[in-house]
């Protein structure tokens, strides 16, 4: 139970899809002009992640990873099909997105119209594929945890697009310098929002349950934090360049 709660908060706030890994930026930037549309897209992302991550977990567990085919018989035990991860994961995702599209068109035509091209584009949204790949690389242990991971990283993305949509509605009449209007200022806002989200960086890493492995985890957390800082600096420099 504790690990579920921990994973939930971690993937919403600490490893936020947008602010920690900068995934799913294209739809995040393009569909964040209005709050209502952003909510629709965010909900779609949560749903797709919640479905595809557990599905891909099963794929990974029983087909792809090293020795996963052992259930077919001992002669298959040393197959490693993980080079097929990308193509199989994306196939699952594309199928699911088609399904979501059909359902949304049927039940909420107005949302379908306002989402426009971006609903099919969820299929190639890096946040969705990223969810599955992180699930694989972070070695998530059970299907339940994978479901949790899918939902919570979806919620993280949802929160991000919700916040930026509200901010963009607020600054609609601001006197932003002409060269920065539109995407430029949105990038800068995203960088500043990432600073806000850094409040959670490194949180919970000094866990008390596993005192034995505490030092390696904190070390890796430090390294991770360094990487994160670099990333923010990069963003800062990018914004600086933009500014110039």
């Amino acid at each position, binding site marked *: 139970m504790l690990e579920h709660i921990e994973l939930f908060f971690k993937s919403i706030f600490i490893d936020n899809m947008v602010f920690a890994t900068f995934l799913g930026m294209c739809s995040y930037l393009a569909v964040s002009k209005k*709050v209502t549309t952003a909510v629709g897209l965010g909900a779609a992302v949560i749903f797709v992640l919640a479905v595809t991550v557990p599905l891909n977990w099963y794929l990974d567990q029983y087909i792809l990873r090293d020795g996963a085919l052992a259930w077919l018989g001992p002669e298959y035990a040393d197959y490693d099909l993980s080079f097929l991860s990308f193509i199989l994961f994306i196939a699952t995702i594309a199928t699911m997105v088609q399904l979501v599209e059909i359902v949304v068109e049927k039940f909420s035509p107005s949302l379908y119209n306002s989402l426009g091209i971006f609903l099919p584009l969820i299929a190639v949204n890096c946040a969705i594929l990223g969810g599955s790949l992180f699930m694989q690389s972070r070695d998530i242990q059970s299907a339940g945890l994978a479901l949790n991971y899918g939902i919570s990283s979806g919620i993280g993305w949802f929160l991000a697009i919700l916040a930026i949509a509200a901010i963009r509605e607020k600054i609609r009449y601001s006197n932003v310098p002409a060269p920065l209007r539109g995407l430029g200022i949105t990038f800068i806002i995203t960088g500043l929002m990432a600073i806000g989200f850094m409040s959670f960086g490194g949180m919970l890493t000094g866990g008390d349950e596993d005192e034995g492995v505490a030092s390696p985890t904190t070390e890796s957390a430090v390294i991770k934090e360094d990487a994160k800082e670099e990333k923010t600096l990069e963003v800062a420099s990018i914004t600086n360049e933009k500014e110039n």
Partner: protein
Amino acid sequence: MGLKQNLHKLKLKYEGKKMAPAFNALHTFLYSPNETTHSGAHIRAVDDLKRTMNTVIIALLPCLLFGIFNAGYQHYYAIAEAAGTAAQYRADGFFSTNFWNWDNFAIGAWTVLPLVIVSYGVGLLVEFIFAVIKGHEVEEGYLVTGMLVPLIVPIDIPLWMLAVAVVFGVVIGKEVFGGTGMNILNPALTIRAFLFFAYPTWMSGDKVWVHEAVERAGGPDAISGETILGSYAQNATTIPYDYSDMFLGFIPGSVGETSKILIIVGALFLIFTKIGSWRIIFSTLVGALVMGLIFNGVVDAGWIDDTSKFHGLMSVPFWQHLIIGSILFGAVYMATDPVTASQTNKGKWIYGFLIGFISIMIRVFNPAYPEGVFLAILLMNVFAPTIDHYVVQGNVKKRLKRLKVKTA
């Protein structure tokens, strides 16, 4: 009124020229402008944006003054502590002569005033440049930011770091959004966040809070001063300060945040002049207390024992969270920033509550950042427009329903 007339003449002389905004700014900073509206549906009042900003600065001055003396006091106290004579040097009571003396003032003036000068100099320079390029009047938004910045940094921060951070904060944090009143994040906190993440060694630890501690480190006359939060984060069971020290402010910390009693005076002043929102201040404190109570409950229930890394801060009595660290300073001067806070009354309650709640959460759960208040406020700045959006939508729905009931 000679000065005023002269300034007015200067302004008229340069009207339409490139430097006009600069003279206009000087004039309106000191006096109310000569030209006012004559017709139309305007409310005429003398308290324009500059007057508002000046009021906040007046509320901040006691903190600055105390910070100047405290800089010297912490310095000499740390030396006395290293020499083993701390008990004699200790300030007893608010009017202690160990605190209010010229030695302390000299050190404080030598360290704090340059921070103020650099902050204002660099910040206003950037503002003037932007105003001249854009051809509008100089915006007064930096007046408060420039005073807040020296109060929320450690005493010995190198001045060039402060200058770089101020440029970042003013340009990226404010000017790119179109200037004062348009920014998303509080510029002063943006500056502090920039310093915190870019130069962490100068922003945290037990060496940065006391003047000269960094230079003397490792030497025979080494001194140090850990903040109370820092000691608690390392699971210290006893701290060398009592409650009156914390409340009156004789503790190490950022320049202006230590004296709780002066912050309360400033808060009353801001509430009385209706410039700070009492809703935000009050709900922030409530949020902090609630989170503190939850952590106390966790400790009392025995879910966590004293081997845990979080035990030290979790077992701090909930009310004590208000007098250690900068939660009070943040709640009074930072969270109430009318631009970046929620604009709706209901939104202000939610916004403030979450600030307090998340501050204490970061303080306890994030050993890397024992002081989470500024990050919590930045985070809620990000979500303030979202809160407002839903409060407004809720009101719209309520009224629509009322309309339906009436017409039905």
